[in-house]
Structure formats: structure tokens, C-alpha cells
């Protein structure tokens, strides 16, 4: 009955809830942002929803997902394949490639010449984790992270692969991972959205992002990811207009509440009280959000740790710092997207720039969380939508090369939140083309992430157009090997 309990709990009778909450405007407002079905749902049981309800004890409470948009090469980051250097410019054996379909970009290429990393690899930490030279800071935290070398996916193009990673389906307006968690667990902070989205761009060849990646799909739209911006308004229209102070706003809202109360007397519609509460919550957000997004008061040692870029709004470093602050304040799911990892050509030039932009801040985030005692309850995820080919796309020279999209294997890392620290999980063959041990499909990763958050991926469902949907569709197996 657990699932049904969850469903019914989430769809708690709005009027019942408001019947109690309408007495004080403050108390019910949290519901709207937190579990909006509460305020908008149709029918439901009379059960009060236990907030933060999980199927079993969670290992992590919050997630920060550092999405590397465009697909960073595993062969220049975490999956060390010296054979590719030895076999420089030799053809990828047919037996290795098998029946793998290739993108339209290399389908017409006459040959598939192998190419190894231009950058050196070393082993780090007690774990002896291999990391390439362009990620010197991540190299220092290897004992805190779990590198998974055997992620595999289905799509071979950016849009469907990104969509698949974020929503569990290549096409279709399915809810994003963060929306599912918002739906399942709500927010820990009544003045902040449960699901926040931060965007940044790197210096490499970029691929756009799309709001469907943080869509609520068929879930209530309050589970939609709220995009934060680097402009003066961190959230859409957060700031009061010029010439209108927060005291003026207070006065306006008091008058508004009185007017709306008059309407309530005429109509008796509980929705009017909900509206009053939403305005109160908006008012509180106007203070709460700038408090969180203000990084100007961060101490020097923190700025130093993330790098001076972190003081420039809209950079990856700044977003990492902001992610820590949002997460610390109780935001359930902070989703970063950093563009620029699509190295079809000029990999040797672009990849170090990309790495430089993210290496320091990514590592700093882990260290920062650890120092605050938050790493244990925060799951941090780092990686992109697919891997890259072990053969060169375009012209291969000693100085430069490119890599096409590769779905069969690639590397990501996770840290904190119940993940085994200091391990490398899974193995690929010496060509870095196929998985030979412990594959982790995206569906498996989703199942594992939900598991760490205390949710059974088969039980977190939502019925829409006659079918119970899940983040993992009808697939997914929890990967015990990476769970501490």
C-alpha cells in the first residue's frame, strides 16, 4: 500500500487542508511551493501528508547535479586507455565496434582512426583513481568521490540524450528528475523552490539547453524547475519595481488581503485564501532568495577555494557556490548545466579550457560541503549526456583531433549522500569502447539516485492518461556496488 499511500498523501484534499490552514495566512503558504498538489489536487484521502515522506530511510536529503552539457570525453578525464596512444591512427577493429550505429557526422567517414588522450593520466589518493592532468583539483578529492566508468545510454544526439538523462525518456514531455523529487519529497525550505536550475557557459563548442529539461511534464507545474538567473532578478520578477520599497509592498499586500477577504465573504471560495497565502509566500521569497543568492559576504577562504570567478554571477564557479548555498538552505534539487563540452574537433585546445572552468569549483564544492558536515547528506553528481568515441572525428594530427558521440560507455562521478567514497566502479575494454564489467544504464542511475533519497523508483508513480508513470519507465535497477 505504500505507493498508494504516497499517491493519496500527495493528493491530499485541498479543502480539508485549507480548512485548517486558512486560520493563519503564514502556515499554509509553504504548501504551494512544497507540495502543490496539496493546493491544486483533485480528490484525495483525508490523510495529512507527512512531509519528506520516504519509502525507507534516505541516505541523502538533497542533490546537486553538476551537469556537463555537451558530453565531456571520458578518455581525457577518468577512463585511462594507454592502448589508444599505442595504436595511434590505427583503425578501430570491426570486432570492437560491432553493430554500433554512428551519428550522421561520422557515418560517412572512411575510417575510424584511434586516438589516445593528449593529456597525461596519474593515479591519486589512497584509492589510486586515475585522473587526467587537466583536472588537477578533482584529482585531489578522489578519495571522496566514486567514479563510475560504465555509464551507458541509448541516444546518440544531444537533444534526445539530454532529455533522456533528465526525464528518463528521449522524447515526450515527461517530468524531470528534480520535478520527481519535488513531487515525492517536497522542499525543506518553505521560502525556496524545491527544484532550482542554474545555467552557465564554457569556452568550448556549446550545445544549448532547453526548458523541457527541467519541466514538470504532467506533474503539477509547481514542480517545474525554477531557473535562477545571474541578473538582478535571480528569480523571474523577484524584485520590486523602482520607487517601491519592501515597506510599500507590505502596505500593498495588507490592502490586497483585505480586498480579497471581502471577495471571500461574497464567494466562499477557498481558492481565494490560497491566493492570499501565495502572495505572502512571494513576499517572503523576496527576502529569502536574495539572502541565499548574495555571495558577496562569503569569506575569503571560500572565494579562494572556488576561485575568483565565483564572484562573477553566471559563471560555473559562481553557480557551484550558489548551489552550495541553496542546498544548505534546504533546496531539494539544484541542477547546474554547464555548456561547452561538445568537442567534435579541436579537442586538444578546447578541453583544457573547459576543464579549467569547472575543475576547481567542482572540487571546491565537495570540500566545502565536507567541511560543513553536509557532504554526508548531499549527493553530488558530475557528468554529461553521453561519452565520446575512441576514434577521431575529422582530421587527425599529432596536435589535434576531435571525438564524436558515444553512447556505449562513459564516465561520471558522484560524491557524498550515501555513495561509496574513493572507488572506481565498472570497467571498459582497453579500447574504451565497450563495457566489460558492471554496466550502469541511465535508468539504473536514476533508480540508484532515488534509492539514495529514500524513494523506491518503482513506487514513486504518477497516474496520467490512464498510466502510472515513473522516472525509470519500466526499467532500472539499483546499483548496490556504489552505495556505502
Amino acid at each position, binding site marked *: 500500500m505504500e505507493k*498508494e*499511500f504516497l*499517491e*493519496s498523501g500527495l*493528493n491530499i484534499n485541498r*479543502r480539508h487542508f485549507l480548512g485548517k490552514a486558512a486560520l493563519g495566512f503564514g502556515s499554509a503558504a509553504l504548501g*504551494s511551493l512544497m507540495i*502543490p498538489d496539496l*493546493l*491544486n489536487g*483533485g*480528490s484525495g484521502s483525508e490523510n495529512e501528508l507527512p512531509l519528506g515522506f520516504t519509502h525507507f530511510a534516505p541516505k541523502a536529503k538533497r542533490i546537486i547535479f553538476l551537469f556537463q552539457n555537451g558530453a565531456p570525453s571520458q578518455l581525457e578525464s577518468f577512463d585511462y586507455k594507454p592502448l589508444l596512444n599505442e595504436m595511434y591512427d590505427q583503425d578501430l577493429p570491426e570486432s570492437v565496434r560491432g553493430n554500433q550505429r554512428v551519428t*550522421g557526422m561520422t557515418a560517412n567517414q572512411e575510417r575510424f582512426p584511434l586516438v589516445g588522450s593528449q593529456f597525461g593520466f596519474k593515479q591519486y589518493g589512497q584509492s589510486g583513481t586515475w585522473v587526467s592532468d587537466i583536472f588537477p583539483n578533482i584529482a585531489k578529492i578522489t578519495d571522496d568521490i566514486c567514479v563510475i566508468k560504465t555509464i551507458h545510454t541509448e541516444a546518440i*544526439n*544531444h*537533444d534526445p540524450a539530454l532529455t533522456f538523462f533528465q526525464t528518463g525518456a528521449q*522524447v515526450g514531455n515527461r517530468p524531470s528528475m528534480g520535478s520527481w523529487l519535488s513531487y515525492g519529497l517536497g522542499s525543506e525550505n518553505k521560502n525556496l523552490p524545491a527544484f532550482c536550475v542554474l545555467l552557465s557557459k564554457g569556452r568550448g563548442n556549446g*550545445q*544549448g*539547453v*532547453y*526548458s*523541457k529539461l527541467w519541466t514538470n511534464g504532467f506533474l*503539477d*507545474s509547481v514542480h517545474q524547475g525554477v*531557473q535562477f*538567473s*545571474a*541578473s538582478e*532578478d535571480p528569480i*523571474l*520578477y523577484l524584485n*520590486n*519595481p*523602482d*520607487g*517601491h520599497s519592501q515597506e510599500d509592498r507590505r*502596505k500593498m499586500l495588507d*490592502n*490586497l488581503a*483585505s480586498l480579497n477577504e*471581502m*471577495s471571500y465573504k*461574497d*464567494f*466562499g471560495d477557498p*481558492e481565494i485564501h*490560497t*491566493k492570499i497565502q*501565495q*502572495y505572502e*509566500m*512571494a513576499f517572503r521569497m*523576496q527576502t529569502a532568495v536574495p539572502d541565499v543568492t548574495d555571495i558577496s559576504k562569503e569569506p575569503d577562504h571560500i572565494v579562494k577555494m572556488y576561485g575568483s570567478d565565483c564572484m562573477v554571477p553566471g559563471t560555473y564557479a559562481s553557480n557551484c557556490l550558489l548551489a552550495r548555498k541553496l542546498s544548505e538552505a534546504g533546496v531539494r534539487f539544484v541542477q547546474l548545466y554547464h555548456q561547452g563540452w561538445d568537442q567534435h574537433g579541436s579537442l586538444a585546445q578546447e578541453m583544457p579550457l573547459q576543464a579549467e572552468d569547472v575543475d576547481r569549483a567542482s572540487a571546491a564544492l565537495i570540500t566545502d560541503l565536507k567541511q560543513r558536515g553536509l557532504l554526508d547528506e548531499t549527493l553530488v553528481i558530475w557528468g554529461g549526456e553521453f561519452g565520446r568515441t575512441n576514434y577521431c572525428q575529422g582530421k587527425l594530427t599529432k596536435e589535434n583531433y576531435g571525438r564524436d558521440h558515444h553512447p556505449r560507455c562513459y564516465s561520471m562521478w558522484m560524491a557524498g549522500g550515501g555513495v561509496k567514497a574513493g572507488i572506481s566502479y565498472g570497467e571498459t575494454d582497453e579500447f574504451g569502447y565497450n563495457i566489460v564489467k558492471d554496466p550502469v544504464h541511465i535508468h539504473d542511475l536514476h533508480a540508484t539516485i532515488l534509492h539514495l533519497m529514500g524513494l523506491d523508483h518503482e513506487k514513486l*508513480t504518477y*497516474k496520467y*492518461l*490512464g*498510466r*502510472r508513470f515513473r522516472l525509470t519507465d519500466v526499467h532500472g535497477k539499483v546499483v548496490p556496488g556504489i552505495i556505502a
Partner: protein
Amino acid sequence: MSCKDGGTDTTSLKVPDKVDFNFHVRPILSDKCFACHGPDANARQADLRLDTEEGAFTPLKDYNNQFPFVKGKPEESIAFLKMTTSDTAEMMPPPEFNVHLNDYEIKVIEKWIRQGAEYKPHWAFIPPEKAALPKVKDKDWVKNEIDYFVLDKLEEVGLAPNEVSDKAYLLKRVAFDLTGLPPTLEMQEAFLADDSEDAYEKMVDQLLSNKHYGEKMAVHWLDLARYADSHGYQDDGYRTMWPWRDWVIHAFNENYSYDRMVTWQLAGDLIPDQNIETQLATGFNRNHKITQEGGVIDEEYRIEYVTDRTNTLGKTFLGLTMECAKCHDHKYDPISQEEYFSTFAFFDKVPEKGIVGTIDASFADPPFIKITNEMKEEILTFINNRDTGYVDVMVMKDSVGIRDTHVLDRGNYDAKAKVVTFGTPEAIMEFDTTRFESNRLGLANWLLSEDNPLTARVFVNRIWMEFFTRGIVKTVGDFGMQGDLPTHPELLDWLAVDFRENGWDIKRLVKQIVTSATYTQSAVVTKKHLKKDPENNYLARMHRSRMKAETIRDMVLASSGLLNPEIGGPSVKPYQPDGMWEVASSGRGTLEKYVQDHGNDLYRRGIYTFIKRTVPPPVMLTFDASSRDQCEEKRHSTNTPLQALVMLNDPTVLEASRVLAERLNAEQISDEERVEKAFRSIICRPVKEPEQKLLMDYLAEQKATFKEDPTKAVEYISVGEYPIIENRDEVAVAALMQVIHTIYNMEESIVKS
């Protein structure tokens, strides 16, 4: 137990005296059993199917002449025993399925078996018939046929309808429902002063012939048709489908019959008397997303587009979740995978490619029509002729013999199985090739055939939703086994048949609805309502409902006098916070940067706001608009703090407040009259005394505040690009603007009461 999708929580229900298969039993069996014992032959377990009568009374495999159900004898019905056992090895559904029957459900099945275990065909697949109008007690209340059915239910459950709505509220409701715009002050005054018997009907007729009616009606259709101004994938380049959007508005305004709308949109290129307009209408099936991502596999995406059309056909015209049958037989409804691809075949003969070129290769991929100025002047006169040149619009076209259509194993584009011919799901209605041509025109005729049980029902249900917030069948996109049952089945059928028999006349249907006593009753919610019918299933009151995203914008612009009432033309880009497109863009394509429009284009209706699919207009999304990613049959209606922030701080609302304040201040009237007029313009009813007092006190206080700090007044009124009125009194304008802005933020402003 409870389900979100408009479903009913059954735990506290009383088991009915007479259990009905369609209304009580099938919803349970469908939800809990059909996934393994239903239409999907490949997923079927133990050779048992419970979705057909034959299956339910066939001896069970591996059981010694025992049956799933035995009429009158639950204790001998193996299926029932399995549902009730506590033995986890025997239990059905198996414990690991996380789907269980609750006590109510078990009691219903038990009683149904005792009463004879009668199977009936699914209600939505039986062609509708006009039932006799029910006998009701309160005949005086009834205005037309709709009311008989509604009142009959109300009397049955012991509720009485509300009083007729106050005239001002009623006018606001019907004006927004028919035109998406507030009634003007003149209309309000005339209507309130008109005591004649047919005052309301005259108003309805006036609104139905208003040129903005088409815009209002088009919005929902654009959601279904997933209309947008960009291609939708990855770099997301520009496309020019807006002439098709203008056609939809035109079709509603000219009251094209629904059969014409269906035929032209599905097969305007195949009808005998086709012309450029009928071809343009087929753009309906080209509004899906198209990729421009370098490196994609052509066929993978071409199949994706045909899939999208097939699924859209299902949701839009049939109210069925066709998409569930692409990878396997449908789990709940009688649609086999082969039937899915037979329907798919109608859309599979287009001479098109999955990818034509990368970003900005094309604003209209082939096949398309070239609309010239000449055509705009001669036939397509409804196209807003602002572009001096031509415009290309994607349309449908068939190339006979271009390719065979195959069943695709598991729906994969490269897993071709058996070749199929044109067809439709047999359980709905046979696609008889002696009656219907084997092409999209045949498909349209099949939809519009008198024997088709779904088309008319699904459409009248949609129209009903436009006025009553939700359909008679709440799941407007799912009339299948998992969908909700109609709250008023006889009414739905009566309306469906009446609609078809009267030439599929949409305005007639709309008029029937808005002139019913049901629609014109007040929206007051009483304690009794909340206790007996909190969801308002029985319609003892009118729904209070929040306006759609587009309508909220239109209300703000129209009430302030800013609205540019122009109809049609290329979409426009109003105010939007800086950087929203740029930060998400790869940096390629003409839509990389948001280049805001100016002047009159800032004040167009919401339906004309440019939709870039990967970054849809943020304010619209905040108010639950569709992202137009795919066919959307129903919008949410949420109530969130982010919406409050928009109404409080969006320059569109602030500018409207400023401009209205300037205009009223320039009039030689008293402050009382100014506040009263602003209130009527926005809330569309006379201000009540306590409201007026509060607002006047607020105005006085604001005047004092701004007088102390005139710089603040100047700052506050410096919003928006609309030219300022010369010689304005800045303090007075700022104070009035503050009051007006408060009125805009009243709950009632964006709600139809």
C-alpha cells in the same frame, strides 16, 4: 486508491445497489488487471484476459474446469478468490506489482458477480444516442436541454442550483469565455441598464460575432496542434507556421463547421475542391517539432514526426492514448500494435526527411506552400499582410507509393516488421475500404461518420471544458478504459448527437452552453456545496476559474487601454527579462538572441507572443501555458507564489497600471470616479462601498507618501515604453498607479466568478 488525474477516491464510497460493469467494475479491472490480462497479447499471462466477456468465462488453463468468474458465485470465481486471498503466492495482482485492490473495490466485484457478472461494451465505443429529456421537478429553472440533464442529477443527489448570477459577474464570465477579453465599460453600462428579457441573449450574439471570438477559441486548438514559432529541437531555429495559426482563428470566426475543420486539417490537400486555403489548413499535421541537429539519423526522426501525428490524432480527435500502442499492444484499450501502425500509415506517405539541414537551413521544410501577396489579397484575406514578400508554410502532401509502412518492433525506427495497410482500431469502428478512401481523406470521413462513437463526444467535451473548466469526461484526452467516466453520460451523448445532427455547428453548440441555466448560475460556494460536492461534479454552482495565461495578459492590456487589437501576423516579442534566450542558447541561429519588439507590437494579445519551444515565454509558463512540445489536451491551473511575483513586478502589469492612471488623471473627474472607473475596467463590476473606502484611503495615503518623496514617484511611474502623457502630475499619477496596481492584483481580477 486515489489517483491524481481527475480520478475519484474510492475508499469512502458506498457500494452501489446495482453494480454496473461500465461504471463500477471495468475501471477496477482495467486499472488493476488489464496490464497482464488485457488487450496486449504479448504481455498476457496465463492465457487469461478479463477485458472480454469471452475471456472471463473461459475455463482457466491449468485449472480443472474452473472459471475466472462464475455468475452469481464469487466463492467459485477463481479470479475473485485470487484478489481476496492472503496467500502471497496466489494473490492477484502479485504483491510485487505495487497495485492492490482496496476493500471497496473487492466489495464491488463481489456484488457484481452475485448480481450476475454481466459484461458490457465500453461506453465510449458505443455510438451515442439521444436519450429522452429527463423529467425534472423545478421546470422553471430550466432554460434549455442541458439543464434537464444537470437538474435531474442535482435533484437525485439532493442539491439545488444556485441563483442566477449577478449581471456584472455574468457579463464578465461570458465576455471572457467568448472573446478572452473583458467587457468594455460601454458594454458593461449597456448590459446593466438593459432590463429586457433577451438582454443576455443579445449580448451573447454580439460576443459570438465579435472578431476576437476566433482568437479565444483558437488557443486550446493551438495547444492540441502543438503550434509554435520554432522547430523545437536543440538549436531551435525559426519557422513560419503563423499563417496556419491565422487560419484557425479565421475558421472559428467564420464558424466553419467542425466537419469542415476536421476534413481540411487532416486532408485539405486531398479533397476534390481543394485550394490554397484547404492546403494551408493541413499545416495542423506539420506543427510537430523538427530536428536541425547535425548528425542525427534521418529515418529515426522522420519516424518520430509520423509518430507525433498519429498520437496527436488519437488525443485530439479520438480522445485515445494511441501512443501506448506504438511499442506493444495497448495495455488497457483494444488497440493492437498493428492497428497503431495501420493508422500511422495515413501519415507516413509524406515526401519529407527527418532532417533537411542544420540550424536555420529552412523556416519551412518540404513539403510547403508558398503564400504570395496575391494569394493574401484574393483567397487568404485573413492573413495579416504585414510581410511584403511571400511566406512558406509547411503542409501535408502524399506521394503515392513512396514507401511501405511497417510495424516497427518495440517502436524502433530500424526494426521493420510486417507491412501494413491503412486502417484504424477496429474496436472503435471498422475502416471499411468500400466506404472510405485509403488515404487521409478516408480517415477524416471515418472520423466524421455517424457510426464513429468518439469524434463528436470528444469535441463537445472539449468545448464543455472551455466553459466549465473541465469536461463532462474529466480526462478530455482519454476516453479509454483508464479514463474517467462521464459525470453526465446522457448529457454528453445528447450534446454529441445534437451537434452532429445540426451540421457540426460550433457557434450553435457554444450558444447552447452559455445560454443554459447551468452556465448562468452564480459561482457562490456554500458550505453545503463543500460538504456534498466539493469538486462540483454536479454543477450546483458555476465554477470560479482562473484565466489562462494568454487571457491574463489580454485582460491587463485591454483594461488599461493598451491592447493592440490587430488580428494575426507573425508572432511578436514583448517584454521579457534579459538573457533568457541567450543563456540557454548554443550561440547559433537567428533565435539565439531575444530581440524585443517596440511600439504597438508590445501590446498584442497573448496568442501572438512568440513561442520558442526550448525557451517558451516565461510568464506564460508560470501561468501553466503549454510549452507546445507535443499535443497538450489540458492545462493545469495552479496558484503559486511565482504567479504573484509576475502580477506584482512584471513591467507589463506595471506599465498598464501607469498608463491607466495617466489616462484617468487626465480626465476631468473626481478621485472617487477615477478609482471607480479603474475598478470597473479591471474587475468588470461596480466597486462596492467597503472596497471603495479602502482604495480611497490607500490613494490618500499614497499621495502623501509620494508628495514627501517626489523622486520616488518619478521612479515608480518610469516603467514601460508607452509614451508618457504630457504635463502629468507625477505624484497624483504615482499614487493612482499604486492603487490600480493593487486592483490588478486582486484575486478577482484574473478569475471568472
